[in-house]
């Protein structure tokens, strides 16, 4: 208990910094990591504690009373100061820690001014926008951050009353607020205490944190958020949810359930989704009377035409920006290029299939974009740089995830000037989008597995899926929820993209070797974009991958 204070302070700081941007952004946002790490470097001890995980907020009943004193300031901090939150992502990393410090000071001088649940209505700006949207839908949807939906499985879950769970969830922004509010509601209705702990801001760090837990067979974590590409790698350490949640799983989008099923075991239940989509500036397309591009060639031509025409007014304008750096994001982009050109989805079972004429053709085409319709620097861009280019008004077309919708809507340069369409294709192939997103899993080493499964049942139910979709921009993974009018009102892009085929990365075929396989692929794709011969690179990558899957 004595160690409780440090992780709390540190996690709060991280939370504060990260609150400056949206929770969804921060997962991919390197800036966020830099800010968090930069701050941590000045307090190494606290950093180590944060790596292991610290208490963000304890929503316990009687049994959790001893941690209560630290709860108030930390929850208060996460929700109270809301000013200027949306301007922060564009300021420098060095500015972030000081801003965070100021906000920490504000929070600590007024502890308990707004705790989740008592609901002073003071949520972060990003959340504020989202809840405002929900409210403006005319009271059709009554559940807000302050009053989350009741627990439908409460009667069943009450038998595990008194159990204590630790849940690794979003550390930042609206995602964290939703998790804390829902956990509190769950505790209220069932008597099961849930300790919501913020996972590290970057997916890579979260991966290694879980790895350490599993390596030690630790019971310190019960329920955890799991990236869509991790189920196969973590399967030996996760509980099979089929017995208890198998029926519920039949209602979810089948491709995700397939993705989360490893050797017949359902190791993660779909929580929320992500997929790649094309953002475009509708004002510029209109000005040059260009139709929304359906094929990659149309996109290339439209981009060049608009950039040429705008040269006088904005010489910095770029035609098409995507994630071209050598990292996981490029695997997602390249999968979309190849799958939308009839080149398959990288691996077919254990067969490496990406070395085919269609894939070579589209990768050569993509190489041609670099330095013409796309900026030369695109081979070093991640989501962060892509979003900056678009929201700064410096890009006509951008490939990104749904989280950018809200960012672009808040930026002066793009507000009401953009729309979303399916990604282009080659010829007449159907449009595709790479699946991202998160699942909830239960650790095999949990001391309260039954209570943990009930918590997962609540968090992933249709009710909560809708609640999260309306109160945040989380893409639901139930078709019934995606079709819901309240949800479509808050996520207008869902309608435009209903025809998109969702393609999954070959994480199941590669299992524990997925990261290695993806690295081989994205390094090859990056080399191609940087001018190397597509055929030679794919040939070499195919050989390396074949050794990995055999």
């Amino acid at each position, binding site marked *: 208990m004595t160690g409780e204070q440090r992780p709390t302070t540190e996690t709060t700081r991280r939370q504060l910094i990260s609150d400056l941007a949206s929770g969804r952004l921060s997962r991919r946002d390197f800036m966020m990591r830099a800010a968090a790490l930069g701050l941590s470097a000045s307090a190494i001890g606290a950093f180590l504690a944060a790596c292991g995980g610290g208490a963000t907020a304890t929503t316990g009943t009687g049994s959790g009373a001893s941690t209560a004193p630290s709860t108030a300031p930390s929850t208060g901090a996460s929700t109270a100061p809301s000013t200027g939150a949306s301007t922060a992502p564009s300021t420098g990393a060095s500015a972030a820690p000081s801003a965070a410090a100021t906000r920490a000071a504000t929070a600590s001088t007024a502890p308990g001014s707004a705790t989740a649940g008592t609901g002073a209505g003071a949520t972060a700006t990003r959340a504020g926008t989202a809840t405002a949207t929900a409210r403006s839908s005319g009271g059709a949807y009554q559940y807000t951050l302050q009053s989350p939906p009741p627990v439908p499985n409460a009667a069943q879950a009450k038998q595990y009353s008194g159990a204590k769970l630790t849940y690794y969830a979003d550390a930042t922004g609206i995602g964290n607020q939703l998790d804390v509010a829902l956990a509190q509601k769950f505790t209220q209705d069932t008597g099961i205490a849930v300790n919501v702990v913020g996972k590290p801001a970057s997916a*890579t760090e979260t991966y290694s944190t879980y790895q350490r837990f599993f390596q030690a067979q630790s019971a310190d974590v019960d329920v955890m958020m799991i990236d869509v590409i991790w189920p196969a790698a973590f399967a030996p350490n996760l509980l099979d949810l089929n017995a208890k949640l198998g029926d519920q799983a039949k209602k979810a989008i089948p491709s995700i359930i397939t993705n989360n099923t490893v050797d017949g075991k359902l190791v993660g239940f779909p929580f929320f989704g992500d997929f790649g989509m094309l953002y475009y500036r509708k004002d510029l397309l209109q000005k040059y009377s260009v139709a929304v591009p359906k094929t990659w060639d149309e996109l290339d031509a439209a981009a060049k035409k608009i950039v040429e025409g705008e040269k006088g007014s904005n010489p910095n304008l770029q035609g098409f920006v995507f994630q071209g750096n050598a990292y996981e994001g490029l695997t997602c982009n390249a999968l979309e290029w190849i799958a939308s050109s009839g080149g398959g989805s990288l691996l077919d079972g254990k067969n490496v299939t990406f070395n085919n004429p269609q894939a070579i053709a589209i990768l050569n085409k993509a190489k041609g974009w670099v330095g013409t319709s796309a*900026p*030369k620097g695109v081979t070093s861009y991640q989501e962060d740089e892509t979003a900056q280019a678009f929201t700064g008004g410096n890009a006509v077309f951008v490939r990104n995830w749904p989280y950018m919708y809200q960012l672009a809507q808040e930026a002066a340069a793009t507000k009401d000037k953009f729309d979303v369409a399916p990604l282009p294709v080659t010829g007449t192939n159907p449009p595709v989008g790479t699946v991202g997103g998160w699942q909830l899993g239960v650790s095999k080493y949990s001391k309260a597995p039954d209570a943990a499964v009930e918590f997962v049942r609540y968090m992933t139910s249709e009710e909560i899926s809708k609640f999260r979709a309306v109160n945040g921009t989380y893409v639901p993974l139930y078709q019934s929820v995606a079709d819901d009018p309240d949800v479509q009102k808050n996520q207008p892009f869902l309608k435009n993209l209903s025809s998109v085929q969702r393609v999954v990365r070959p994480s199941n075929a590669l299992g524990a070797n997925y990261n290695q396989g993806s690295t081989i692929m994205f390094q090859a794709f990056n080399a191609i974009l940087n001018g190397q011969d597509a055929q030679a690179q794919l040939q070499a990558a195919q050989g390396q991958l074949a050794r990995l899957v055999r």
Partner: protein
Amino acid sequence: MSQSVQPAVSSGEQVANIRRGGMTSFDQSKTRLAWALLTPTLLLIAFIAIYPLLQTIYQSFTDARLASGVTPKFVGLRNYQDLAQDVTFRTSIWTTVKFTAITVVFEFFLGLIIALVINSNFKGRGLMRTAMLVPWAIPTVVSAQMWKWMYNDIYGPINDFLVRKVQILDSPVAFIAQPSTSLWAVAAVDIWKTTPFVALLLLAGLQVIPEDVYEAAEIDGANGWQRFVQITMPLLRPAILVTLIFRTLDALRVFDVIFVMFGSRPDTQTMSIYAQNNIVAFSDLGYGSAISVAIFAIIAVFVIAYVTFLKVEES
């Protein structure tokens, strides 16, 4: 220890003690006290340095994987055989050596110039010494991210300056995206950040050179350049060697600045990044340990070379 005492010994009893190969009781108790005082430190070093090293060497002979739930098997030299064939690792060694050569050379010469300037007497010297340390004081992760933005080809101030303000370039250059410039770009960041540290070490060396040596040289009619070559450089030699050892070893282990700016891009992947990638991202503890042991051996070669050089200098 007994040797240093020997000349001072005069009584026959003590001489007899030494002849038996023993020490005086006073010496013995001093030795015991020394060992007693050193023991906690030695145990701590054994625990935090030697144990992990041995553990790493042991793991490099197994097929251990993180969080796999499978007990590791002993695989003999297989990891090392794979490593010998590994082109990526060879490339990463070469990248690391290039990075080390570029940064150490530039940091040394720039640091020397700055140290000489700051060592001279001028108004505001104290302020300059403090201001100089700002780049060194910023956490590497933060400064790397900052430079990544500054290098950006669309909204980065460096390109804006070169293209629009001074108009040296016709169009923006993607410094960190092109493999031809990426290593130089990240080396520049490291040089910017670490030169102050080099300057500080050299400045410490400069300040212990006595003033009267220069006065004597001046009286003898030596000009500024002669004083620098004949006096400053030879007397600065120990400080220079320490600085070079520090910087070379640091540069060979470089991780953070490159990891933040490039992730695991093949053209800038250093030995440390490759090892970290294998252990953390690929969960391949066995192979990653073999890489770590190889890095340890490579750095040891540099250390031995430097230390040998130092010894030659001394004698």
